[in-house]
């Protein structure tokens, strides 16, 4: 009964989504305020219905209702509760339902938080949001029904793919979806601006928090996914240039570019057309990512069962929305008013360069990801484009970008002074050079790591140089408190980028060893020694594991114990390696087990990874910077409208 209620709620949500797409849009054309305002309650009701459907599916998973195909294929009565709840999105149907849940939540949030917004903009935005929702709800109901039943329920389910049975499953997909799908709001705002033909700094202010929020979640989601892959796959790698990973990186790059050019638009009313274009691009790339991951054109742990019908459906959605938005853009962008002027050497100029480099990086990732698919479709040749390609292409784009980041921060709006900016960055340059020498002396080759580490320190120091110099002008504390939060946000986010870069640079100094270990014989790994103390077996809730107790020693003293294991999941008859990891400072010692031999030796991969935690901590600091910027009182939603009401703007 609960299951049918969920299914029914989903059908009803589709009907409401269609109403949300049509009524406010018609109202906006007829200038009928009552019709336009239908959008808000409908958007909230649509969200509640999708949430009800989602709750029903979660309930079925929690109580192990094996009359549902979805539960049979992805659950098991002995599965721990956390994976029963998070396993709801650990499969194609459930993950699409989560996608739509986030989408309708975005719509409801716009409806509830947009009191200050002009009726016309709100109506058109929610109509577009409703249209996207209708498309994906139809996709779920027609091709991926999570509520499908079987006539003969089995006693037991087939369990969730063991690779997914990890706390990371509870965190990574929701965060990533909040980011991915969060960009739908910006897309809807952009489409609404194009439909309405009006775009100004107030528009940029309405859009800003949504861009920032989506970007924060996407940053955290990508970082979490990377850390999950790092500790669970047992290869010690944190990024594999897998098309599925690229699918999340593309909207991130476009979103980061959008964040920066929206700042120009908000402050100076310039780059309007470009801002609109990036708003469309960011969500288009999210859609492309959804297509790549969910259609089955790629095989990976993310692409659950593949079904050509689904691929064609998502492709159709993709074509309609991206094509439609770009067509709208082509038709209407020319009519948008052009913005104000600025000198090439200025904050705006620097942000234009930032956008050029970021979108170029984004384009190369798109090419590297789609080229193999295109080539296979055209010639039948199968190729793989991996790390060597992306490293060759992206490093020459990323390093100059990092070099320019603090300089851009130092330039004034409208007209800046390059020499002055460089002089004010003296400390940062000095810190970078000192770091270069220090890292070179401490760790040595590879050169790329040394250069990147030097740049990273320069970026961290440079990010705060502006704030430090402003504070030094007088009463330090009062000055620091007086600075707008968004200035802190920029500095903190840039510093986070620096920390991540340092962590990435340090990957070059890591130690990797594949060894046959004899119990009791210590093995050198970087500055530490690792020895097996014991090998034993034990049973978990739905698996059995063989684990080794390894002592990590430094100078003869045991400083930590790790327990890498090999797990065997009975339901799927599948083995999985569980790495043993200990964090020492900002670095980690990492061990993954291989095979055990008759003579008692145990194959293992042992890694020493200096500063590796900085990769993810840096991403969290970036997100924190975004959060600070989001919290800036002056830029909160509503302030723009109140300010505008106080001082009427001249006609354009």
């Amino acid at each position: 009964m609960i299951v049918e209620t969920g299914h029914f709620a989903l059908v009803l949500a589709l009907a409401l989504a269609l109403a949300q797409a049509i009524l406010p849009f018609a109202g906006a054309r007829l200038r009928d305020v009552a019709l336009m305002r239908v959008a808000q309650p409908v958007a909230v009701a649509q969200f509640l219905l999708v949430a009800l459907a989602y709750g029903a599916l979660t309930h079925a998973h929690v109580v192990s209702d094996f009359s549902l195909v979805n539960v049979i294929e992805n659950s098991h009565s002995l599965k721990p509760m956390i994976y029963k709840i998070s396993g709801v999105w650990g499969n194609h149907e459930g993950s699409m339902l989560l996608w739509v849940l986030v989408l309708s939540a975005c719509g409801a949030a716009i409806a509830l938080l947009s009191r200050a917004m002009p009726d016309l903009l709100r109506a058109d935005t929610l109509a577009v949001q409703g249209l996207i929702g209708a498309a994906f709800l139809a996709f779920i109901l027609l091709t991926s029904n999570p509520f499908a039943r079987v006539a003969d329920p089995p006693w037991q389910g087939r369990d969730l793919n063991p690779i997914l049975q990890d706390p990371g499953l509870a965190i990574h997909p929701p965060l990533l979806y909040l980011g991915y799908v969060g960009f739908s709001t910006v897309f809807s705002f952009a489409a609404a601006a194009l439909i309405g033909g009006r775009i100004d700094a107030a528009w940029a202010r309405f859009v800003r928090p949504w861009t920032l929020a989506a970007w924060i979640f996407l940053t955290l989601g990508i970082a979490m996914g990377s850390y999950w892959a790092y500790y669970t796959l047992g290869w010690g790698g944190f990024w594999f240039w897998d098309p599925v990973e690229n699918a999340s990186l593309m909207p991130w790059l476009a979103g980061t570019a959008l964040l920066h050019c929206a700042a120009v638009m908000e402050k100076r009313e310039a780059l309007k057309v470009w801002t609109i274009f990036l708003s469309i691009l960011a969500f288009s790339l999210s859609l492309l990512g959804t297509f790549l991951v969910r259609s089955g054109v790629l095989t990976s742990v993310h692409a659950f069962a593949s079904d050509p019908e689904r691929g064609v459906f998502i492709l159709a959605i993709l074509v309609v929305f991206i094509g439609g938005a770009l067509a709208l853009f082509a038709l209407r962008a020319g009519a948008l008013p052009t913005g104000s002027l600025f000198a090439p050497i200025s904050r705006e100029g620097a942000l234009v360069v930032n956008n050029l480099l970021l979108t170029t990086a984004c384009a190369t990732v798109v090419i590297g990801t789609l080229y193999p698919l295109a080539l296979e479709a055209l010639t039948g040749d199968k190729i793989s484009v991996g790390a060597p390609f992306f490293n060759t292409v992206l490093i020459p784009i990323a390093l100059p970008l990092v070099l320019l980041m603090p300089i851009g921060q130092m330039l004034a709006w409208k007209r800046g002074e390059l020499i002055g900016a460089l002089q004010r960055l003296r400390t940062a340059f000095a810190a970078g050079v000192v770091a270069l020498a220090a890292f070179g002396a401490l760790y040595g080759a590879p050169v790329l790591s040394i250069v990147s580490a030097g740049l990273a320190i320069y970026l961290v120091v440079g990010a705060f140089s502006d704030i430090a110099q402003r504070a030094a002008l007088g009463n330090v504390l009062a000055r620091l408190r007086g600075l707008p939060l968004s200035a802190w946000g920029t500095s903190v986010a840039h510093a986070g980028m620096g920390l991540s870069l340092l962590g990435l640079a340090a990957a070059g100094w890591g130690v990797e060893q594949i060894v046959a270990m004899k119990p009791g014989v210590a093995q050198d790994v970087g500055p530490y020694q690792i020895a097996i103390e014991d090998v034993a077996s034990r049973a978990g809730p739905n698996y059995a594991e063989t684990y080794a107790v390894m002592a990590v020693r430094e100078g003869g003293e045991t400083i930590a114990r790790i327990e890498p294991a090999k797990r065997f999941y009975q339901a799927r008859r599948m083995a999985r390696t569980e790495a043993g990891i200990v964090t020492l400072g900002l670095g980690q010692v990492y061990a993954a087990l291989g095979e055990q031999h008759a003579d008692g030796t145990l194959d293992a991969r042992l890694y020493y990874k200096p500063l590796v935690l900085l990769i993810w901590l840096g991403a969290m600091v970036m997100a924190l910077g975004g959060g600070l910027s989001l919290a800036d009182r002056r830029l909160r939603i509503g302030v723009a409208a109140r300010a505008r009401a106080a001082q009427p703007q001249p006609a354009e």
Partner: protein
Amino acid sequence: MTRKGKRLALISAALAVLAMAVGLVLFALRDNIVFFYSPAELAQKHVAPGTRLRIGGLVKEGTVVRGEDRNVSFTVTDRTADLDVTYKGLLPDLFREGQGVVVDGALAANGAFRADSVLAKHDERYMPRDVADALKKQGVWQGEKQ
């Protein structure tokens, strides 16, 4: 600077960055892509030893030999042609005889394939799509185990 001049500067800057990117992409695509073949395709292609390749197929039953010092050798087959593979390192958890596998590496001078990474399928329902395609082409596809 005039509006026109500014626009010109912007466009030339964009073109410069774009040209650089295109150059990088072309350069990287020439040197860094890896072709994927099944053993039967490889047998027809006459690939020079040393070229990086990716081979997909099934691990032939009864061919896995574990040697000293983590050296492993096995045969990858698509039921039409076989390819002997040598590898040194740890095999993935899901590596099993009769199951799908993808190996990265290059042909040695003696015609054997020296792999530097071995990837196995992710779960019992998953078969590398490339392998499935190759098997379908050879007419030995058994259908999806659902």
